């Protein structure tokens, strides 16, 4: 079983490290996005002390205005969706299915119903923010092919997890064992410790990650039920839109929707978020009212479903009701929603996100230590697995280790640097930030191949340290905002990004220094025992 773990683990460890590190950062995609749109953040800060806007009392009027707009502009659309009181900001929005496919949207003036034109502001920093990390970790920015690559890699990760548990013969005896400064032993201890202690999380995150895309990865059931041709589309419309009525061709005026909104609020005990009108002006018309999840809802429930109540407008009859947290497609549907939200940490608030962040870092450390352990072991005693090519393959693995671990981290913080350095207002600015990420990563790979292994580690870790530690300074120079000001005004999202960056920078500096002190031939006993190691999970990654 050991060879299965070693070889399954090795070949996927680099990609998994990238998936895990970006996935871990994706936990905080909102704060990262907030940091990456400083103009917006500063404007938000200027209005932070404004009193909350008064409660909207003219919802009936807002609904009527939006219906008028749709009647005039998009009468042919067979689905109108109105958000009468947007959060935050209490705006009025309308959405519809375009005949050509896709979703149309418009923001309306809540008092007049006139279309609000959005001119792209000159100083707007075009960016996809933290979503870059989200997108990368599940599709590598490569669309469906990326989804498949990540899925197969995750399947192999599950194989490596199970075979790892079997290979680890002293899982309970060595449960708390970490012996630093002992070369190969320390790497193995660190690899075991982070993996075993966070094993429930690692299984959960890998499994729910696969379950998330189950209809992609396991397409046969959908094909069997709906056929090859357009099967997925039919499945999704059934899934998302249970009991959508068919048009009957008899004209009917749209009644007052406010009374239905009030009825729905009685039924689901949530404020109305979206009013979805199917087959407008047809006698088969149905309206579905969706509620807002309040913070207390997401704190206490894993399922992110809001409440919903549907009415047949011809009869006024309530035809479906879903309580908040329930699913309208039965227990299987609820399971799926819970699995997805379990993966996205969309519940329980900030403490849960921090737990996910640390467990994610532990998983990242598991991949990193595993990949490094492979080479540390073979530098002690070569395995000769690849015959005469062994030395070349080892060299390749070393390059990949440096580029995949230190290099990727450089690319991640480099992405934040790109956000501040790429001029505001150039064409495809958001795309250039992502290109900077990939470009930097490629550069690190080239660098790792050109430099001796030890120099490669030191230089890339040192670069990482510099980029991370200087990130707050870069922010001061580019926007004038600084860490102290962020903390004083209570902007913990921006401050959190910069404080984490500082912490990672110190870790990287410590790692670079440790590699620098390492003897070329790993000695049995390390020179001096390190004191005052930062008590963070990642230290286990860098220990020599």
């Amino acid at each position: 079983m050991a060879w299965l773990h070693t070889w399954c683990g090795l070949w996927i460890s680099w990609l998994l490290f990238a998936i895990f590190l970006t996935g871990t950062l994706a936990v905080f995609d909102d704060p990262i996005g907030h940091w990456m749109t400083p103009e917006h953040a500063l404007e938000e800060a200027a209005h932070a002390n404004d009193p909350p806007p008064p409660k909207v009392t003219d919802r009936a009027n807002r609904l009527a205005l939006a219906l008028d707009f749709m009647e005039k502009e998009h009468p042919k659309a067979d689905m109108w969706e109105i958000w009468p009181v947007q959060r935050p900001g209490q705006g009025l929005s309308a959405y519809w299915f375009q005949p050509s496919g896709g979703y149309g949207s418009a923001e309306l003036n809540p008092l007049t119903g006139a279309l609000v034109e959005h001119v792209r502001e000159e100083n707007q920093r075009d960016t996809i923010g933290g979503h870059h990390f989200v997108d990368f970790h599940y599709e590598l920015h490569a669309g469906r092919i990326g989804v498949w690559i990540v899925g197969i890699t995750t399947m192999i990760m599950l194989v490596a997890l199970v075979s790892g548990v079997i290979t680890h013969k002293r899982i309970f005896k060595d449960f708390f064992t970490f012996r630093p400064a002992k070369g190969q032993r320390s790497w193995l201890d660190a690899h075991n410790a982070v993996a075993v202690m966070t094993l429930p999380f690692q299984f959960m995150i890998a499994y729910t990650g696969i379950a998330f895309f189950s209809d992609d990865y396991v397409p046969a059931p959908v094909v069997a039920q709906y056929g090859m041709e357009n099967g997925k589309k039919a499945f999704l419309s059934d899934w998302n839109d249970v009991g959508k009525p068919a048009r009957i061709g008899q004209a009917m005026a749209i009644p007052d929707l406010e009374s239905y909104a009030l009825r729905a609020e009685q039924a689901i005990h949530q404020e109305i978020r979206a009013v979805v009108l199917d087959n407008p002006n047809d006698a088969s018309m149905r309206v579905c009212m969706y509620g807002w999840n309040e913070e207390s809802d997401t704190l206490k429930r894993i399922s992110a479903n809001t409440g919903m109540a549907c009415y047949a407008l011809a009869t006024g009859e309530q035809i479906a009701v879903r309580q908040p947290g329930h699913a309208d497609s039965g227990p299987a549907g609820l399971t799926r929603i819970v699995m997805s939200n379990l993966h996205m940490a969309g519940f329980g608030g900030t403490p849960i996100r921090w737990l996910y962040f640390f467990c994610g870092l532990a998983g990242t450390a598991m991949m990193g230590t595993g990949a490094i352990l492979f080479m540390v072991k073979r530098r002690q005693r070569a395995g000769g697995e690849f015959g005469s090519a062994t030395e070349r393959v080892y060299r390749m693995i070393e390059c990949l280790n440096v580029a995949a671990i230190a290099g990727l981290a450089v690319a991640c913080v480099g992405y934040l640097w790109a956000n501040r350095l790429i001029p505001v207002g150039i064409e495809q600015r958001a795309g250039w930030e992502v290109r900077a990420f990939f470009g930097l990563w490629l550069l690190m790979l080239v660098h790792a191949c050109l430099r001796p292994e030890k120099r490669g580690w030191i230089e890339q870790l040192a670069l990482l340290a510099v980029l991370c530690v200087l990130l707050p300074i870069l922010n001061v120079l580019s926007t004038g905002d600084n860490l102290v000001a962020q903390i004083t005004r209570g902007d913990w999202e921006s401050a959190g990004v910069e404080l984490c960056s500082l912490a990672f920078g110190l870790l990287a500096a410590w790692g670079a220094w440790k590699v620098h002190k390492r003897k070329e031939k790993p000695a049995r006993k390390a020179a001096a025992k390190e004191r005052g190691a930062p008590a963070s999970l990642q230290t286990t990654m860098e220990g020599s």
Partner: protein
Amino acid sequence: MNVILCALGLSYAGMASLSLAMDRHHGQVWGRDAAINVRRALQVAGAVLLALAIWPCVAGWSATVGFVAWVGFISAGALLVALLLPYAPKLLLRSSLLAAVAALAGLVTFLQ
């Protein structure tokens, strides 16, 4: 905040107690193997503390979310213990005792 401190304190103290019931780690703190009754006592204390850690989680969130949080806190507690043991075993002992006392006292706030 109280929920987090209580849950983390109990998980950390529980894991520390379980680790000190093992000869290797008992030796790191006291320089000798654990007597059999001491070991049993530490194991029971550790198990009870870990089990108690679910209380603030369920009280602060809900049964479902609390359970997920509990598993996370236990992992975090174990990682802290493993990281402290080789560097500062005495500190581990003192801090886990303090954490246990403080967290148990904090549990009182969940009694209502």
